[in-house]
């Protein structure tokens, strides 16, 4: 279909093309997705269809018609809406303030209403795409099996994405006015990380509650809650879930709500811009803070200077911190396991601590070693590269080691042998992870933190192998500490194998190290 130049459809095609370039641009800078990537997506989608078939076949039409299903469906939709909102905030900042093409579009003869309509549609699509991909197979298989009401999933996803896109765009307009575009984007990224972490912690706390209280007691508690009129399956609270399951009225209600929000948001966005929001956002950034007395803290050694500089740079980057802290969130359930009384430390603790510390170190080393902001400054200085390198490694390994120092000490006090073995594995995992990044890391931009694995496959592969080897060794050594006899012999053999694999991967990384300069 050919759209007339300047029409809304034409503009929408331009928007989609820009989104495709953004998603498909690869390391070589080509704007085309590789065949391998396309194949992976197709295989994944096919597998999702197979999985959906297995689930729907097992549940049958009656299972899906169960009124209780509205509860998990609503909860899932709320969780998805949280992610959609953070995506909407991020994409709204880019679409309205950072892509830099709005001035061009608004100065053209195109109607400003159609410009903002298309821009908001773009935000809706970016929020909905992943979930349409994930849950589309359920709809398709449902339709094939005659469960036509499952088409409600499409309606619910698109309506939720629309509502969240509208909320995201209006929030962005308000936040940009107060904080400026850059800080709003950072806030959106932090919110996204926090949303993910909260969902993980909630799911873990529920599973821990079930374990602690016992399955029967947990089921009884849930049943008691369901008896409350607010939370009963027919409560209005679960209407979104009923829309997901294809109940016509809630489905129509959601669709109408989405359309109304869309129309309202386009009008408001247009008004905000006409009243000079961009200028207001710009002037908010330009306000200078009052100056105090100049205070310097020159350090005695180059080593200290570099370490302090690296920690300062990370501490002042909320987005990076949120990304790093996200990894630490996964440590929380593990800490509960460690600190639980009357139990000897299990092998999962050894493996878990090694895995977490190793991956945390890899992240920090990538930021500190690979993503140096001013490599030319360091290279054009007379400072010894060896000392700078050592300081950077120290800056990368110290935070993870400090973080696990107390839990490790606790373990050593409770079970000295297992604690010491875990300590050894953690230190080795941390040092190896940092060295691998030092040897194989490539110069990169901090903003590429999330996609670092894609940019340097070799380094990521070595990081993964190394992490798994030390994690495996942690598991085996703790198991070994509790075993005796023949079983201990075979575990020791496996532990030796894991240690050898870790050392071989380190050696291979050293042999393949990048020559600097």
């Amino acid at each position: 279909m050919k759209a007339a130049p300047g029409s809304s459809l034409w503009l929408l095609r331009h928007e989609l093309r820009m989104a495709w370039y953004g998603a498909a641009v690869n390391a070589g800078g080509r704007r085309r997705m590789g065949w391998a990537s396309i194949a992976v997506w197709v295989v994944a989608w096919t597998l999702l269809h197979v999985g959906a078939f297995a689930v729907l076949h097992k549940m049958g039409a009656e299972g899906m018609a169960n009124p209780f299903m509205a509860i998990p469906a609503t909860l899932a939709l709320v969780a998805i809406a949280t992610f959609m909102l953070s995506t909407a905030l991020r994409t709204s900042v880019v679409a309205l303030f950072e892509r830099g093409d709005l001035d061009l579009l608004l100065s053209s003869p195109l109607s400003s209403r159609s410009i903002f309509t298309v821009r908001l549609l773009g935000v809706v699509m970016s929020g909905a795409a992943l979930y349409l991909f994930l849950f589309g197979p359920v709809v398709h298989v449902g339709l094939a099996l005659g469960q036509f009401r499952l088409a409600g999933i499409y309606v619910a996803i698109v309506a939720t994405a629309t509502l969240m896109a509208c909320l995201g765009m209006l929030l962005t307009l308000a936040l940009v006015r107060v904080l400026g575009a850059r800080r709003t984007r950072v806030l959106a990224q932090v919110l996204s990380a926090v949303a993910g972490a909260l969902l993980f912690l909630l799911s873990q706390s529920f599973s821990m509650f079930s374990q602690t209280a016992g399955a029967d007691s947990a089921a009884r508690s849930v049943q008691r809650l369901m008896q409350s009129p607010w939370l009963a399956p027919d409560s209005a609270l679960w209407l979104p879930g009923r829309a997901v399951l294809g109940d016509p009225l809630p489905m129509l209600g959601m669709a109408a709500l989405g359309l109304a929000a869309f129309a309202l948001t386009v009008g408001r966005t247009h008004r905000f811009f006409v009243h000079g929001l961009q200028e207001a956002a710009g002037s908010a950034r330009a306000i200078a803070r009052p100056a105090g007395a100049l205070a310097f803290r020159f350090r005695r050694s180059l080593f200290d200077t570099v370490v302090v500089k690296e920690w300062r740079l990370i501490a002042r980057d909320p987005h990076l911190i949120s990304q790093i802290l996200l990894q630490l969130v996964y440590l929380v359930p593990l800490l509960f396991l460690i600190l639980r009384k009357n139990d000897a430390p299990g092998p999962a603790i050894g493996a878990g601590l090694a895995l977490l510390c190793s991956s945390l170190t890899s992240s920090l080393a990538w930021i500190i070693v690979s993503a140096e902001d001013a490599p030319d400054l360091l290279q054009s200085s007379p400072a010894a590269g060896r000392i700078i390198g050592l300081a950077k490694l120290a800056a990368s390994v110290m935070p993870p080691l400090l973080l696990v120092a107390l839990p490790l000490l606790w373990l050593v006090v409770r079970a000295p042998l297992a604690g010491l073995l875990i300590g050894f594995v953690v230190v080795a995992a941390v040092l190896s992870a940092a060295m691998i990044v030092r040897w194989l890391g490539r110069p990169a931009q901090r903003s590429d933190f999330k996609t670092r694995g894609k940019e340097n496959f070799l380094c990521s592969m070595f990081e993964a192998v190394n992490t798994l080897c030390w994690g495996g060794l942690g598991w085996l050594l703790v198991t070994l500490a509790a075993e005796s006899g023949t079983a201990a012999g075979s575990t020791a053999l496996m532990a030796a194998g894991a240690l050898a694999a870790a050392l071989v991967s380190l050696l291979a990384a050293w042999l393949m190290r990048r020559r600097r300069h």
Partner: protein
Amino acid sequence: MIDDTPALQLRSLRKAFGRPAVDGIDLSVRRGELYALLGPNGAGKTTTLRMVTGLLAPDSGQVEVLGTDLALDPAAAKRKMAYLPDDPMLYGKLKPTEYLEFVAGLWGIAAEDAEPRARHLLDWLDLSKHAHELTEGFSRGMKQKLALAGALIHEPELLILDEPLTGLDAAAARQVKDLLVSHVAKGGTVILTTHILEVAERLAQRIGIIRQGRLIAEGTLAELRERTLGGSLEDVFLQLTEQA
């Protein structure tokens, strides 16, 4: 006794990225001189400066900074010079005071020497009132001035600047130009590249013109005019680069 060792001596300097980027440049810059290196885009100016500052290893040839061979003793050579590229080497998440602390640490300047210099530079470049802000919020001119402060904190004898005036407003550009003139007046040496030919015409004692990796002409403005039909530096530059 006056030391007549050149501030910078290049001998047959070569670098190729597939095709030659710098093709056997011989150059000598005297102490206490402001030398402008001019050339069209892609002529090899930045590549030359990056080799001089040790950021790029030459394929062949020799770089001597104030009598020290860069290849033999890079630390000693780097200690005497400072480099300011067109994109300032800053950390957005550091404040100006912290940036200067870091640069002083890299050059191994003692705190008792570094602190008064840092205060003076921040005051002189009107950055003191922004000393508690992160540099990521700075304008292009403020960033350039802070990078200059970083370059000057170790009091280099040789200052190398790549397009130092790009994107600066009139006031900031004037401040940078004054700073360069003052550095030369104190006996320092400045080598700069610029596309703003009026700057070279007004400030430079000698001018070198590079085209396709070769130094095609060198001398004072008067000497260059003699080689061509005369006129402004712009006329001379265009005649020389089109002739070659």
